[in-house]
């Protein structure tokens, strides 16, 4: 009876899991984090945020370095 609901549930779970894995959830997390402390905090746009995140690797390339 509730199979469609559970299928939808696991699809949503998988989607959330995947977004975490690929790093797409990082922006949402940042917004959530900023809003938690101050509901009307000014947050960066996604474009700005992603730019800063990528450029941070420029400053210290050791972050995110992968092994041989």
């Amino acid at each position: 009876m509730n199979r469609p609901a559970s299928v939808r549930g696991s699809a949503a779970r998988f989607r959330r899991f995947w977004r975490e894995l690929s790093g797409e959830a990082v922006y949402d997390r940042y917004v959530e984090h900023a809003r938690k402390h101050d509901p009307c905090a000014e947050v960066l746009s996604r474009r700005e945020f992603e730019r800063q995140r990528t450029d941070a690797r420029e400053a210290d390339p050791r972050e995110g370095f992968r092994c041989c």
Partner: protein
Amino acid sequence: MPETAEPAAPPSAPRGRLTPKSITIWTLVGLVGAAGWAMLALSRGEEVSAAWMVAAALGSYAIAYRFYSRFIATRVLRADKNRATPAERLDNGVDFHPTDRRVLLGHHFAAIAGAGPLVGPVLAAQMGYLPGTIWIIVGVIFAGAVQDMVTLFFSMRRDGKSLGQMARDEIGPVGGAAALIAVFAIMIILLAVLALVVVNALAGSPWGTFSIAMTIPIAFLMGFYLRVLRPGRVTEVSVIGVALLLVAIVAGNWVAESSWADTFTLSPGALVIWLVVYGFVASVLPVWVLLAPRDYLSTFMKIGTITLLALGVVIALPNMKMDAVTDFASRGDGPVFAGSLFPFVFITIACGALSGFHALVSSGTTPKMIQKETQVRMIGYGSMLMESFVAVMAMVAACIIDPGLYFAMNAPAGVIGDSVQSASEAVANLGYSITPDQLAAAAKAVEEESLLSRTGGAPTLAVGMSEIFSQVVGGHGMKAFWYHFAIMFEALFILTTVDAGTRVGRFMLQDMLGNVYKPFKNVSWKPGLWFASAVVVGAWGYFLWVGVHDPLGGIYQLFPLFGIANQLLAAVALAVATTLLIKSGRLKWAWITAIPLGWDVAVTLTASWQKIFSEDPKIGFFAQRDVYAQAIDDGKVLAPAKNMDDMHTVVTNCTVDGVLSALFAVLIILVLADATRVCVKAIRNPAETRLDEAPYVESRYVAPAELWPTAEEKAELAEAGLGSEGGLRKESAGAGSSS
């Protein structure tokens, strides 16, 4: 001295008492593993199914994970689920953030897995499948996975400090500086050897060269998409990228058969120049242009291909044609690398059993993201077991191909000659057989001009993979596609490493030069950036050039150096871990890291000693130098050198390689001496020992320790109203919670 302790003896498990059911299950697991080992070790003269290797590996991993890693986590490290991790305490939503353990396992595994575990076992297969497999499995259980987990744990207790920082803070400035120089030197050798693998795979192969060249415009496109069109949409852009990549592999075939083929048929020397130029340009371009998109692409390809390989091995269960132990193991005169089983198998298979590089990953990003201290077991130990399994599969792939073909592909050109006839004779001299027709047919099957002397491991692995994949999907007709798919996947992430590694090397160089001339400290100061990049690229480019032109074979000469360097880094990590165990009053348990450290030092120093002092010119760099220098004085040319220039090249290379071996040995001794001093002080005077640990804060975070939550953890999660990914316990609910 190999491992003396019996790990299978479970600690008197504090909570999970062994029920009859679990005793039955673990006995069965043990029997499966034992059956695998028995079949591998006892069969002589007949082909053994790879199924036994998989059984031996998985059975051993399961037992080790269940008993040994649990013992280390609970009794030795005393991982505390009530102590807040840096991710919880310092949560800033960006680099410090409690991350779902399954996601973090994925990230950590993607960061430690690379070309290393795929290349080393292929080369070590010259001694047969048994020695390498034993080291991959036993080594990971007692050394590699322990190192990763312990380093992760100690870095986590120090808010994610890097290995270098921990060495400096806990051992001292001398050990710290030695560790820093070691990392830099290793980076250079690593990049040179990896680039050499790519050169050997792509030389004279228009199909491969075209496909790899196409990854650059594909990455540009992806970078533009992520920067300008749709920022942050990683999945979309990766799907597009992977699809284009597959098109590029197929298109490589068309190009190879068209009039463009000559344009993409490059000599090794030309490829070196292209790679050096690429390395420089890629490392000075902004990260978003090439590096970030390539990183996504290579990560997805890597995880996908490794999964495919695992499935392929398990479905096809091919037979291994290589001997269990070949004569080269004891004679030490193998064509792939010189030296006998001890110590050279143990440095050839670095990643996959014990890899110092993982200590750099385990101390840095991952410890800042971990939810619970208790998860170090699953993430540190568990992902290293997965990496080891990748190495086992690489061993399978190398051993299912005909040994004659294996040696024809992996012996240097100086041994093999340049025709299928000479190769066939050379292989016969090595004690194996393959006809010229068979060699030609093998090359034809993967649509390559020639497979002779394609040293470096990647092409051999690609042949093995194409064999396995084509048994599962597509049959014989798909072999060429799968071969180039495998080459593409390896070359792709090696090139990503070349870019990222050059940046790391540059960063370290800028930091060092900044002490001499201030502006260098500013990492975005353009002249400094270009200069440091050029120096780093020049350094690995030199070894790459030398490796390609070395008459004795670049992989033959350089791979042992790379192995020694990587094991040296492992020694640094294990020395830091042992020091920390002792300083934190756990002398009783220091053997956990001290035994692998002792083994690793014995291996590394024996290998260095032989490379420096051996009188056998095949092994000792300086003995080799003397032989060739003497011949030059006598006006003679020694094979495989073809002329006087070659002779001088050999002399120069031997000198450089010998000096580097000596440098590595000195560094390892320095770190050890300094660590011993600190340990002795800590044992004599425990009261004055100062630990740099972050203070204890009670954790409010609820999350399971393992992949699957226990009944107890489920109840705890339900009580806090959280899903299986865990989360913060609500303030009000905190009072009534049980633990």
